[in-house]
């Protein structure tokens, strides 16, 4: 196994808000290898976006990277880098694609200028060279008539086009890693299909790794080779994509898969995960999924589960790993009275 491209260890990013400390990312560790697509899946509030922003040190106050390390392939820890060094990495060796293409683009500059700017800043290219390279990149992302499109402004392009522009910007410097934070969530289904195909295609051509962050298990199934499931600021399961879908271990993963309607498999009623995600300012003690879990028992309340190894490359943060027979005794979830837990 070659050395990983990026090695994140015990990352903790906390937000100091007026209602308390929100531990959005609370001890997350994983590796990203060269040329692979790692998917992070979870629902809102699980911390996946904050993880992505933390990698590139884009967290603004009142948020702060409390502790942990993000070691990149040259051995340097991104968390402790100086401002100039981190700017050298952003857009250059690690770049990011955001969810809302309209707000990620500057409305008063042409898209060509914005894409070219990446090369002018990082490779110190001349205006002309950078522009040519930008048009090349835009064409690569499938924008027809790239040269004239490059002269247009963001508001003149459709959502799908804008996302392609963002992708072109992200790939300009042929980075080692592209972080895609819900890149298709804001797009229509047919456009989403185009963009996902494009990402997979470009990855093969350029050889970059992709960190695909999404809440959509379908997107994960189609693009990722390895998957991390996050819940309540932690990694709760990690596995190869085939294994995760075939044999999900963590009850949250299992619940997620069962609560999605699948085309072609008609069910009378959808299965639900009852309850709601706890507030990030008040993560419950013990296992954070305990209150919604159909298998939990006393141990889940008293002991916060570590990541147990359950297969060659499959880990799960659940005590069922050591007491698997509990899976045979499901029960209605233990529900805590809202508003009463904290005195």
């Amino acid at each position, binding site marked *: 196994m070659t050395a990983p491209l990026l090695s994140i260890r015990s990352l903790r990013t906390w937000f100091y808000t*007026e*209602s308390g400390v929100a531990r959005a990312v609370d001890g997350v560790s994983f590796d990203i290898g060269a040329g692979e697509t790692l998917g992070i899946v979870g629902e809102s509030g699980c911390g996946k976006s904050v993880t992505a922003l933390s990698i590139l040190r884009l967290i603004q106050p009142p948020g702060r990277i409390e502790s942990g390390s993000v070691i990149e392939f040259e051995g340097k820890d991104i968390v402790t880098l100086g401002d100039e060094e981190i700017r050298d990495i952003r857009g250059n060796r690690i770049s990011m694609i955001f969810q809302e293409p309209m707000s990620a683009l500057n409305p008063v500059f042409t898209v060509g200028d914005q894409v070219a700017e990446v090369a002018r800043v990082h490779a110190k290219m001349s205006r002309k060279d950078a522009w040519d390279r930008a048009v090349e990149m835009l064409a690569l992302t499938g924008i027809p008539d790239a040269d004239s499109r490059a002269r247009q402004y963001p508001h003149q392009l459709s959502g799908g086009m804008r996302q392609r522009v963002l992708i072109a910007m992200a790939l300009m410097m042929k980075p080692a890693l592209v972080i895609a934070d819900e890149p298709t969530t804001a797009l229509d289904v047919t456009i989403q299909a185009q963009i996902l195909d494009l990402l997979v295609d470009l990855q093969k051509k350029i050889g970059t790794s992709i960190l695909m962050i999404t809440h959509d298990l379908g997107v994960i199934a189609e693009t990722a080779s390895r998957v991390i499931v996050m819940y309540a600021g932690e990694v709760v399961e990690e596995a190869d994509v085939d294994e995760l879908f075939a044999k999900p271990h963590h009850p949250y993963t*299992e*619940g997620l898969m*069962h*609560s999605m309607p699948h085309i072609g498999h008609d069910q*009378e*009623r*959808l*299965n*639900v*995960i*009852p*309850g*709601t995600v706890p*507030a990030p300012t008040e993560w419950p003690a013990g296992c954070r999924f305990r209150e919604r879990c*159909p*298998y939990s028992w006393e141990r889940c309340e008293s002991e916060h589960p570590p990541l147990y190894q359950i297969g060659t490359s499959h880990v799960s943060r659940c005590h069922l790993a050591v007491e698997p027979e509990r*899976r045979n005794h*499901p029960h*209605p*979830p233990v*529900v805590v*009275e*809202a*508003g009463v837990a904290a005195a």
Partner: protein
Amino acid sequence: MPWQTQDFAADSGPTRYRESPLALGLRRILRKRSSRVALFVLGVIVLVGLLAPLVAPYNPAAQPDIVGLKDLPPSFAHPFGTDPYSRDVLSRVIYGARLSLMIGVLATIVSLTVGVAYGAISGYAGGILDAVMMRLLDACLSIPRLLLLIGVLVAWPNFSIGALVVFLGLTGWFGLSRIVRGQVLALKHAEFITAAQALGASRRRILWRHLLPNLVSPIVVAATLGVAHVIVLEAGLSYLGIGVPPPLASWGNIIHDGSDQGATLWWMALFPGLFMVLTVMTLNILAEAMSDAYERR
């Protein structure tokens, strides 16, 4: 199959203790030290004004010794000195607080009433009515408020405080109605308004029950700033001699009385000026804090 299809009613409740938007806003405002200080200082000034008869050491109009007590600098007996008419300045400043604040608040109430009505109707009605009302407003806005006031007040022979309040109020609602109209335009298309329509709510009901309560925050902010503005205006008018009629005490009046010999009677400008500055500053600080608290939603 452990994953139930039945939902559980018990789990569905809100996450914290009950908190109305009002309480939430107040909590945010009071969180800042500057707001707490401002509130305290303003509170003291208002209290002093309200309790003027109890707090002021002398009658503000009393002139016990026309010669002996004239133009005295601050002393133990008269902490703020005396004026050319041998009246105690401290007492006049205290009564001045009462009058100036009262004028500020009342005039702002007049402005609010007209401004909110105008802006809300214009914004909600839309179309031609809105266009016409806005153009009229533009015409009104093109006249500088101070000049308008001076013009009217100079031409009016003997006006009462009430008339002053009304004039101040009627010249101060233009900007407010713009703000209100803008808010109404933004809210008009909010989905909860559509939801109310879908329930069958009449336009009147939507205006009163849905639009106006959501306008409270920007209105309160604008009103607070309005009070500050009126206080300054009134002081200016009184200084020019066309504001509060003598012998009543207002901050502007006091400055006016000492203006002939401004250099020597420095206490006649300093103390009322100081109180004015404090009042206006605290009002502005509070308005800003309210505006921040509102934005954060």
